[in-house]
């Protein structure tokens, strides 16, 4: 395997992290900021799954292969599986806060919603 492929997934994960952070910092619309947060989360999926990968390993499902075959790491996949579904509902919660802020103040830009008002 060529040298660059030794760490390409890790660098793509870092690139996605920085893209998400950049979008979050320079966002002018709260919903755009929430979507950039979703991109941030997907970078962690990429990193964890890349760590568990094994060249020549198959998926950890033994329904049709013998139990002595080498498989990739199933533990990180178990962590990711629940995370992907829970992320969608947490994004819904964040968007509910955005909808409420828009309802109360009429604006949806982060710069207008700076100060806390009682």
């Amino acid at each position, binding site marked *: 395997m060529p040298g*660059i492929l030794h760490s390409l997934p890790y660098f793509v994960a870092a690139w*996605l992290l920085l893209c998400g952070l950049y979008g979050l910092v320079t966002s002018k*619309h709260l919903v755009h900021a929430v*979507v950039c947060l979703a991109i941030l989360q997907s970078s962690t999926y990429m990193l964890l799954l890349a760590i568990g990968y094994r060249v020549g390993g198959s998926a950890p499902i033994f329904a049709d292969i013998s139990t002595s075959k080498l498989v990739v790491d199933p533990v990180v996949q178990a962590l990711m599986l629940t995370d*992907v579904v829970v992320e969608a509902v947490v994004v819904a919660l964040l968007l509910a806060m955005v*909808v409420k802020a828009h309802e109360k103040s009429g604006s949806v830009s982060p710069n207008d919603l700076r100060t806390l008002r009682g």
Partner: protein
Amino acid sequence: MMIWFGAGLLLLIGATGAAVVCTRNVTNQVLALGFYGLLLALMFFVFQAPDVALSQITVGAVALPLMVMLAIARMRFRDRARSAAQGSSSSEGRHD
């Protein structure tokens, strides 16, 4: 062979992630997010993770853009209701 396909897919994911962030219009960003979710699911298949890929297809390409679209729709509904209420109240004031 599979390695080069995986490497190309990784670069495509990086480019799509940057594209999703750079799309400032929220409605367009929803579509880009759906495409990004599908690409990620394909990448999870290359990583030999079918469970996670199934989760990502159903959530990242269907449920997550759906949630964002619902929020946008609700905010737009509020805007229209508010402007309709203001329009009717201002016209009543003129008839006074």
